[in-house]
């Protein structure tokens, strides 16, 4: 039994990897840059959704400030590559990693006040953190302040930037997926089911959730770094509350606790606005009407999301759509 799960886990990762690479090479030669941009932003969204899903789905703690963490990552990576590392695309993976580390430190700072009381304080503190980050960037002139930070180094061609994003996404997915299935992930699950019983078994409630938030922040920072080097331009407006909401709805739609669900939901919700672009709504962003309606209806009709806690293969198996 254990052996079987192990195989399917690796097959899952491998299918993702090969599929994406073949797709990338095909896209590189056959499709235009509009599709390329959508594809990369899908992967960034998926990284962010996975990161949020880890803290919200597994640790049952709500973060409303993932855009703030993303901003920290994006600005860190952009600043590092511009000021320290001679602005060469070769260093992008390095700066993105550094962005992840810096962001996880910010996550640690945020986690200090957040887990002192029962309740949804992490939601409020992260919301506040995102706001503080935004205000600080607005008042920080050497990174452009409200004008934004531009001319960030990008990858020279699509294939490179695509491979990098796929690599980061797959690493994020595999790490979080394995964490979910690990001893630690099961601890978090136990703490959600019954915190008192779990504490009696010797689990440290506060420390476990704090660690979960730090891990989540790390990947949010990585996502921000990839974002900065994908667009080449970031401004405080790119990390507004709406982005946090967008990430949240991806995690919820896919199913809280389901890593593959997040990726699928990120795909759907990256394509959907492009399809909706033709609707006449004046200056209002139509996503912000559709998203909350999806959120409310989902919560009332199917609160567990598309896949619930299950991963894609587990879900298909449970429905008997594929043989186990």
């Amino acid at each position: 039994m254990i052996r079987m799960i192990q195989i399917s886990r690796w097959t899952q990762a491998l299918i993702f990897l090969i599929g994406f690479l073949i797709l990338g090479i095909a896209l590189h030669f056959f499709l235009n840059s509009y599709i390329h941009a959508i594809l990369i932003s899908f992967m960034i969204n998926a990284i962010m959704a996975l990161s949020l899903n880890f803290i919200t789905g597994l640790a049952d703690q709500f973060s409303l400030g993932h855009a703030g963490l993303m901003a920290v990552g994006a600005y860190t990576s952009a600043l590092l590559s511009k000021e320290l590392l001679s602005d060469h695309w070769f260093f992008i993976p390095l700066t993105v990693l550094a962005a992840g580390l810096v962001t996880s430190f910010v996550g640690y700072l945020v986690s200090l006040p957040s887990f002192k009381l029962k309740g949804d304080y992490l939601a409020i503190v992260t919301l506040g953190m995102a706001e503080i980050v935004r205000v600080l960037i607005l008042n920080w002139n050497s990174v452009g302040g409200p004008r934004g930070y531009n001319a960030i180094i990008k990858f020279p061609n699509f294939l490179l930037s695509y491979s990098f994003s796929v690599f980061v996404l797959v690493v994020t997915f595999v790490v979080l997926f394995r964490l979910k299935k690990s001893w630690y992930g099961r601890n978090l699950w136990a703490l959600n089911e019954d915190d008192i019983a779990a504490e009696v078994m010797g689990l440290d409630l506060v420390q476990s959730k704090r660690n979960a938030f730090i891990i989540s922040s790390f990947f949010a920072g990585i996502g921000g770094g990839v974002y900065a080097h994908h667009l080449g331009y970031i401004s405080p407006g790119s990390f507004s509350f709406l982005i946090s909401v967008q990430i949240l709805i991806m995690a919820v739609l896919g199913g809280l606790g389901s890593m593959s669900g997040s990726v699928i939901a990120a795909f759907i919700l990256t394509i959907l606005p492009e399809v909706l672009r033709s609707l006449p709504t004046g200056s209002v962003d139509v996503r912000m009407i559709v998203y909350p309606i999806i959120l409310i209806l989902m919560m009332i009709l199917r609160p567990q999301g598309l896949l619930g806690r299950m991963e894609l293969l587990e879900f298909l198996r449970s429905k008997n759509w594929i043989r186990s």
Partner: protein
Amino acid sequence: MEEFLQHSLNGLSFGSIYALVALGYTMVYGILGMINFAHSEIYMMGAFMCYYFALWMGFQTPSPINFTLGLLFAGLMAGAIGFLVEKFAYKPLRKSPKMNSLITAIGVSILFQYGGQIIFGANPKSFPTLIEDQNLFEIAGSQIHLIDLLIYGVSALALLGLHFIIYKTQTGRAMRAVSSRPDMSPLMGIDNNKIISMTFIIGSVLAGIAAVLVSIKYPKIDPMMGSKIGMSAFVAAVFGGIGSLHGAIIGGLMLGVGEYYLIGYGASTYRDALSFTVLILILLYKPTGLFGSQLKEKI
């Protein structure tokens, strides 16, 4: 010194507004244990209801009667909206995990903000002058405006009314019962659903009144106006100790005064960050807030 007094007076008037809105958060939290993110949008709807009411009634000249009518109408409509939101969005989720109602609350909030932009238009509207502002008198060189006095007066009246309802009536007694033991209160013949609806209505009425008062002082309203004040008011509620009525009032006043000192002494760009900084400090050093009486529980 004059300047200091002036900032304090302005801060107090804004603080009373925070207190009115914070009460809505703290009451809902006290009774359901849930952060009602849509509360700031009910506040926004209060201002818009009053705006359309004034247009519809054709209020041309400022007068105390118009002011009173507008205030009452906004309060009533905000109460009705709060009731409907609770009935259709939160009630179906009463039994599901708290995470779900929180997500729904955020959904409702965004829906109001952006739905409002489509229905009312995204551009700020100028609020009708329901009552003429004038300098009434001076104390130690700082001027007392009629509007500020009205804000103090109306807030004080609303707070007294609330105090009366909570501590002197049967409904208030039931509210306190539901808030302390929701599982036991039905045994005492209390209809929990009715009391929860009642709580939402009272909180929303206060928000609607606050919205009209603010809109008279700063006559620009737009569908996003709720979010900023909502967050500050929530922080005020946590500051005072969430679930505690007097805490919300004192927290609101202190936060309002603090923000005005920041603006007055030249750090106005950091104003938005102040309330969150206060929040983080409170959670770090005194998580139960100033007057929070609840037992300390982990996560």
